[in-house]
C-alpha cells in the first residue's frame, strides 16, 4: 500500500481570476471575494484525484481535514486518513508546513499538493528533499518547477509514480518572487530551495536517433564541458542552482546551492559570498560568471539576485558570462526568451539579444535574452 500525501491550499488562485497578482494572505482573499472570486483550487485538486481514482484500493491517502484536502478526497471517492486536523477556518502557511512535515515523517511516497509558489515554499520548508513532491497547478504564480501542465496530468503522473512505472525523480527549483516588484511587471526572482519531483515523459518510444539521456546525464555533460574548458588562473564565480551545482560536484567541491561560490584553478577559494565580498574579490581580476536560469520561466538574472548585481556584472564583463542549460529545459520554455532584470536598464539592454548557452558536451545553443 503506497502512501500519498495530499494537501490543498483552498485560497490559491483566487487572486488571479479577478486580476490580482497572487493570493498571499487572507486580506487579499477578502478583496478577491469581494470582486467575485470563487475558490478554484479545490476544483483543480478534484480533477487530479479523478485520474487516480482507479488506484483507490491501492493507495493510502493522507491529508488534512476540511478544505485542506479531506473534503476533496471524500468527494473523489477516497477514504482518507486525516493526519493533520486543521481547526481554523482561515488556513495558513503553518498548517501546510505542519501537514507536510507529518507526511514526510510518515514516509509517504509522494506529496501531491494544489497551490502556487507560496504553497510550494511552505512544503519545501517542511520537507526539503526528503520525499518527492508534485504540484497541481492551482495558484496564480507558478514559477517553481514543481507543477504539472494541468491538473489531469498531475494526477496521471502521480499515479504512474505511485505504481512504480515512473521511478525517477529530479531536482526542481522552488521560487520566491518579490510580490511588489511582480505587480509592477518587474522580475525579482529568488531561488528559495529545492524539492524532488517525479520525472514526467518517462518513457519515450519511437526514437530513431540514439538512446536518450536523463536530465542528470545532460547536466553532467554540461559540467564536463565547462570543466574541460576551465582556464588556469581565471576566477570562476559559480551561481546558484543544480546545473551549476553539478559542475561543483564533478570537481568534488562543496557547493552553496542557493548562493554564490568562487573557484580558482578548480579549487574553492571562498563560499557563499555576498555582493560586497564578491566585488572586492574579483576587482581588477579576470573572471567568468557561470550561471543558469532558475525556475520554470527562464529567469536568468533578476533584481532579487543579491550577489550578481549590476556592479558585479560590471566587474566581470558581459562577455564573460557562461550560461548553462539543458536542451530539454530550453524546449520547456516554448520559445520564450531568457529574462534579465538587473535593475539597471542600460545593463539589461546591453545583455539583451542572442546568447550562447552550453547545453551538453561540445554542444551549444544560441538562445535569446530579453
Amino acid at each position, binding site marked *: 500500500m503506497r502512501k500519498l500525501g495530499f494537501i490543498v491550499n483552498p485560497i490559491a488562485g483566487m487572486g488571479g481570476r479577478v486580476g490580482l497578482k497572487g493570493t498571499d494572505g487572507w486580506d487579499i482573499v477578502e478583496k478577491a471575494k469581494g470582486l467575485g472570486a470563487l475558490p478554484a483550487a479545490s476544483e483543480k485538486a478534484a480533477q487530479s484525484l479523478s485520474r487516480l481514482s482507479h488506484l483507490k484500493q491501492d493507495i493510502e491517502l493522507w491529508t488534512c481535514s476540511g478544505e485542506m484536502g479531506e473534503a476533496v478526497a471524500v468527494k473523489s471517492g477516497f477514504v482518507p486518513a486525516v493526519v493533520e486536523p486543521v481547526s481554523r477556518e482561515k488556513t495558513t502557511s503553518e498548517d501546510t508546513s505542519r501537514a507536510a512535515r507529518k507526511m514526510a515523517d510518515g514516509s509517504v511516497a509522494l506529496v501531491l499538493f494544489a497551490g502556487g509558489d507560496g504553497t510550494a515554499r511552505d512544503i519545501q520548508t517542511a520537507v526539503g528533499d526528503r520525499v518527492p513532491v508534485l504540484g497541481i497547478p492551482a495558484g496564480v504564480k507558478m514559477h517553481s518547477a514543481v507543477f504539472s501542465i494541468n491538473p489531469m496530468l498531475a494526477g*496521471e503522473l502521480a499515479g504512474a509514480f505511485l505504481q512504480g512505472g515512473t521511478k525517477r525523480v529530479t531536482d526542481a527549483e522552488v521560487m520566491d518572487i518579490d510580490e511588489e516588484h511582480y505587480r509592477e511587471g518587474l522580475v525579482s526572482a529568488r531561488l528559495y530551495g529545492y524539492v524532488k519531483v517525479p520525472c514526467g515523459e518517462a518513457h519515450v518510444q519511437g526514437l530513431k536517433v540514439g538512446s536518450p539521456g536523463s536530465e542528470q546525464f545532460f547536466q553532467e555533460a554540461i559540467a564536463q564541458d565547462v570543466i574541460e574548458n576551465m582556464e588556469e588562473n581565471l576566477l570562476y564565480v559559480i551561481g546558484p542552482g543544480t546545473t551549476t551545482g553539478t559542475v561543483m560536484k564533478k570537481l568534488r567541491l562543496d557547493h552553496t546551492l542557493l548562493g554564490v561560490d568562487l573557484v580558482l584553478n578548480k579549487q574553492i577559494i571562498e563560499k557563499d559570498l555576498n555582493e560586497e565580498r564578491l566585488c572586492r574579490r574579483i576587482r581588477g581580476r579576470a573572471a567568468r560568471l557561470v550561471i543558469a536560469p532558475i525556475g520554470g520561466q527562464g529567469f536568468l538574472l533578476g533584481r532579487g539576485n543579491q550577489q550578481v548585481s549590476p556592479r558585479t556584472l560590471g566587474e566581470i564583463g558581459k562577455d564573460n558570462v557562461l550560461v548553462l542549460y539543458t536542451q530539454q529545459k530550453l524546449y520547456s520554455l516554448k520559445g520564450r526568451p531568457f529574462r534579465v532584470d538587473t535593475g539597471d536598464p542600460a545593463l539589461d539592454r546591453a545583455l539583451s539579444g542572442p546568447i550562447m548557452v552550453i547545453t551538453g558536451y561540445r554542444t551549444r545553443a544560441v538562445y535569446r535574452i530579453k
Partner: protein
Amino acid sequence: MGMDMKTKLRRFHQARWDEPVIFESSRKGERGILVPQAEKGIEDVVGDGISKLPRRMRRKKPPQLPELSQMQVLKHYLRLSQENLGADFNVDIGQGTCTMKYSPKVNEQFVRSPKVSALHPLQDPSTVQGILEILYKTDLFLREISGMDRFTFQPASGSQATLAMASIVKAYHASKGESEQRDEIVTTIFSHPSDAAAPAVLGYKVITIYHDESGLPDLEALKKAVSKRTAALFATNPEDTGIFNPKIDEFTKIVRQHGGLCTYDQANANGSLGLTRAREAGFDMCFFNLHKTFSSPHGCGGPGCGAMGVTQKLSEFLPVPVIRFDGKKYLLDYDVPLTIGKVRSFYGVVPAVLRAYAWIMSLGGEGLKEVARVAVLNNNYLLKKVKEIRGASAPYAEGQHRIEQVRYSWERMTQETGVTTDDVTCRMADFGMHMWSSHHPFIVPQPFTLEPTESYAKAELDEYVAALKHISDEAYTNPDIVTTAPHQSVTHRPGHANLDHPDKWGITWRAYLKKCEKGLRKRIG
C-alpha cells in the same frame, strides 16, 4: 454500404492473429526448404567437406532455429504482414517528414527483374552498361533538380548522407590546413536531429540556433554562432514545421563569408521540386532521400538511399567509385584524388536509384513541378481544415501558407481535457491511420506533424480530417475512450516496464526466456 460517406468514418478493425513468436510454433523434424546436396562426383573427390575444418572450428550443436514446414513459415509471415499498416493501405499523411507517397508498382517490376537483382557489383562493367547508365542519368537528373554538379548514391539513408557530407566538410578543411581551427558546425532547432548528431560523430562541436517568434531560425542568433571556427552550416529547409526560411541565402552568405561550407538537408524537398534549388540558395552540398521524395518505398525502415550532391570544388572528395561516361561507355572510376573513401559497400542501394529513375522518367520536369504544387496544395488545404478542429493549432507563421508539411499542436486540447498527442496517435489507429508526433524531445508542445504529399485524393484528406475531428470531440466529451485507445488495432497500448532495465529487457526470445526462468520477469500470457 461500406464506410459512412457522411461522417467519412470507417468501422475499421486491423487484422489480429494473436500469432505466436515463431519459436513457439516449432515442431521437431519439419523442414521449410531442402538444400542442394553436392553431387556424388564431388563428394567422391573431396569427401564431406567439413572434416577439413579443425575440430575446434566445427559447430558442435546446430543452431537452435525453429523447425517449420514451408507453408507454415509463409503463413506466419503473411499473418504478420497483415498486422502491419503499410502506406499502400491507409491515408498515410500522418507520418510527417517521411513523405509517404505512392511507390509505383511498375517500378517494383523493374527492381525484381533478374537483370537487376542478379547482378554482381564486381562484374565486368561491359556487362552492366544498362544499370550504369541508369545510375549516371539519375545523377544528371538530380543535378538539374538541385543545381549541384555531381551526385553519389552511396549513402544508404539521409543520416548516412549527412555523415558523408560531414566527412567531406572535414576533408575539405583539412586540405586547406584548417582542421584544427574549424571544429564547430551550426544547425537549427527544427532541422533533423541527424544534422546535429552526424557531425558530432566526427568530433565537431555543435551549435544549435533557436527560432524567433515567427518560427524561423533567428538570423541574429546565426551571426552569434558563426565565426572563424565554423566548419559548416547543416540546415534543413523547409524545416519540419513546413515553414520555408526566406532568408536562407542570407544564412549561407554569412557562413560562406566566414569560410564555412553550407550543407542542405533536403529531406523536405517534396514541395519545392523545380521551384527552388540548393545552388541558388547558396549551398555547397545537399542530399535527397530517394525513399521519400523520389518514391522508393520505405521497407519498414530501409533499405533506402540518401543521394548526396556536391558542387564542383567538392567533387574531388566524393566517395569512390564515381560513375563516368567517356562518350561511348560507362565506367566506375576509383581515381578520385582526395576521396573520403567509402561510406558504404559498393555503389549504394541500387534498386532505390532505379525506382527514382523510373519515377522521374514517368513525370518529367513539368511533372515534378506538378508533384510539388499539388503537395503544397494538399498541405495548405489540410492546414485550413485542421485549424478548424477544436483544440488544434498550427504554431508559428500565423496567417501564412506552408510548404509541404505542418507541425501542429494539440496543446490547447491537452490543457482543456488532459488528452495528449500520444493518446490521439493511439486512437487514430482505430481508424486505420497513423499520426506521428515529432522527434523527441518535443519543442512544439503536444505536436503532431502531417505531410500529405501529392499522392492522396481530396476525399482522402477529408477522411483523415474527419477522424481527427471525431477524436477531438471524444476528447472533450468522452476522454476515456481516447486515453485507453487503441481498441481496434492489432494490440493494445504497449507497456514499457520491461524495456529499460538490464534485468528485464528481452532483446531476443532466448534472452527473454532466460530471464523468465530466473524469475526476473513474468512470462507473458
